Structures are given as C-alpha cells and as structure tokens.
C-alpha cells in the first residue's frame, strides 16, 4: 500500500516537472511571438540587435541611464519615413519622449532621434 502511495506521489511529481517544462516553453513561445517582448526585461531591453530587428534598420542606441535610452536612426529615405515613424508609435512597453524628425535636404533623407523610458 505504501509503495503504491509512493509510486503515485512520484508519478504526480513527474507530471509536475513535465508541466513546468511545458509552461516554460509556452511562455517562451508567447514571448517570441511578441516582437516587442525584449523591451520588458532588463536582460534584453538594451540589446542593440533586438532593437535593430524591431526597426529593421541600423540604429544608434545610447544609454542615458539604466532605464532611459536615446535612439538615433539616420538616413531614412522619405518613402521609408512613415514606416519608421509607425514603428515608434507602435512601441507599447516603453514611453516615448522628445521625438525629433529632421530632414537633411542635401542628401534627401531624414534623421529620427528620440528618448525612450524603459519599464
């Protein structure tokens, strides 16, 4: 009887461990589907590659403090400007301040700079 009890408890433990891995995997999948997921955790929110992947452009990431960063995107062609601006507007996990869009008429391109406060 004791051994049956022990077996059942061990079985429950195995199910718990299995469920834990499944939950983790589910959480990771859910986050990977969220293109802005990297902004939510301290580990990834200053990752240049993640930001560049999000904007689909080369950017300059300048940390001002632990939670405040300045982002510069240079040489945006006029046709790409609305898309770039849309990307900034769509940022949902961080607050956008002081967005500046400057046209450089000599090379017919725009520069965007903004300050972002991270969660």
């Amino acid at each position, binding site marked *: 009887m004791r*051994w049956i009890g022990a077996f059942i408890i061990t079985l429950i*433990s195995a199910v718990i461990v299995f469920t834990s891995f499944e*939950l983790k995997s589910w959480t990771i999948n859910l986050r990977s589907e969220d293109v802005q997921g990297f902004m939510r955790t301290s580990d990834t929110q200053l990752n240049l590659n993640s930001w560049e992947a999000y904007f689909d452009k080369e950017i300059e990431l300048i940390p001002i403090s632990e939670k405040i960063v300045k982002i510069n995107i240079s040489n945006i062609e006029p046709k790409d400007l609305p898309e770039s601006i849309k990307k900034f507007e769509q940022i949902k*996990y961080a*607050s956008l*301040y*002081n*967005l*500046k869009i400057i046209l450089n008429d000599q090379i017919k391109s725009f520069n965007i700079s903004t300050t972002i406060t991270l969660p």
Partner: protein
Amino acid sequence: MGTSRLNMKKLYRLVSSDDLEIYNLKESGELLFCKSVNPTKFNLKKIRHLIISAHFTNWDTKRIENIAYKPNSTVNMFASQSIYEKDKVFITLPYKSGNTDYWTQAWAPKNRLSPFLKTISKKIKIYPEALTINGSKKNTYWKSGPLILNSDNHSDFININFQEEFNHSISKNLNGFIFEPSIEFIIFKKKKPIGLIFSIFILLMSIIFIWFHSLNEIILEKNNPPTLYENNISGMKLLEIIQSSIPDGVIQNIKFDQRTDSTTYTFLSNTNALEFFILASEFSDTLSEWEISNEANVVTFKKKRDN
C-alpha cells in the same frame, strides 16, 4: 447493557495450539469470558489484541537498584538464562515495576508462534499473559499453559505454583481478571516508510521546481501585467498634409519636435517660406489645431494648447 457490550473491545487468549479463548474487555480492564474456539478453524486475521499463555512464553524479573539504569529497547535482559538463541525468540521491551526496583521482560520462541503468525494481521498487538493479567482483585489462581499462576497482593509480580504441591481451586479461564496492557511483544518491526518519505521529498522538490522554473513568472505576470503606453505622435498627420504641398527643391530642412508639438520648415529662401505660409494659411479648416508663424525663411507649426 447490550449496547455497552457491542462497544467493548474483543481480547483473545491463545491458551494452547488448539484452544483460543475470546473475551470482552471492559473499559476498566476487566475481562468477560465469551467462548473457546479452535484457533486452527478461526479467522485469526480479525484479532487485534491477543494475550498468549505461558505455553508460548517465558519471563523473568531482575532487581536493579540503580535508578539510572535504562536498558536499550532491543536488549534481551535474560538471554543468558534462555536456551534459545537471540534471533530465535520474540521479546518484549524491558519493563520496570512502578513500585519496586524490579525489571521484567518476557520472551517467546519463534518456532512456537510461527504457525499462528502466518495467519494474523500485522496490526495485531500480542501480550504476555503473565505480565499483563492481574488477578489480585479476584484473588484466585489460574492455569496458564503448564503453570499455575496467582497475583501477589504485596508485590507487582505473578507467583508461579507447582502443580505437585497444589491443592487450591483454579479458575478455568480469565473471566473477571484485569487486563493491564503495559507490555507487549515486538513481533512486527515497524519499517520506516523510506520510499514514501523519499517520494514526498521528490514531490516537494518538484513543487519548488515548478514554482521557480515557470509558475512564479506566470503568476507574477498575471498579477502585474505590463504597463502599456500609447505613443501617438500628434504632428504626424500635419507632416503628411504639408509634405505633399511643398514643391521639390525649395526646402532646406524639416524639424518635427514631439515634445513641443511643433514642426519647423526651413526653406532655401524667404520668398519660398512666405509662399508656403500663405498656402498653409488657406488650409485653416484642416489645420485649425495649429498656430502657423513665419519668420524669414522659417515656417513653424505649433499645436494649440487647451487652456
């Protein structure tokens, strides 16, 4: 009366290999004889309390004046007096009389009890008759196996009487005797439920694991959902409208400042700036939210603030 009998515990007395007596046990410890049965034809599994007669057991007492003496629970105090080897007998725990300095212990040869042990429940408690039956109240003799016993009113012990020199009346059974279950045989050693303890430990570990590995994160996220921001850029619509109405090659610079909600157009000449200012002023319906100003080659749109 009938109900109180139903509530009584049953006590069984194994007198010999072919005689099992059944008693009702009162709360006071008094035994009420019910009947005798043949143990070989009786379902021994249901027995929970069994006393065994001197046919199956032996016992001895020893006076130890040292009050600090405490024998180990597994010690056989009278091993030297027994003809049986240590592992061939069941023993009781050593027991000290409450009123005297005497220690007592009983033992029972395994080979005599083994035919019964195969058919009894592991929950059974087996008592040595000579150390658990008190006949002092009844003040009579009784037969236990080959021995004739009686309780001594002046001590805690049972007297053994030899049959040859005995001429008193002997009680046929233990009816009216008092049962005092102070001492019992160690028959089935309780095994520690190591497997169960280990599995419970694994269960706890798995609960801790799931908490730190995934659950903690999910619950925290559920309780503290992330703050969502709306980063609408209010001047973008203006930028789109204006941009389409500026001819190519006349503008030097456009500066949009989200903080001040202003857009500054720097033209190549003052004339171009003035023409654009006049044109923009004509769109007063569309640009009603904006204040437009012109200074040299710069035209500035600034969002009107609600006061």
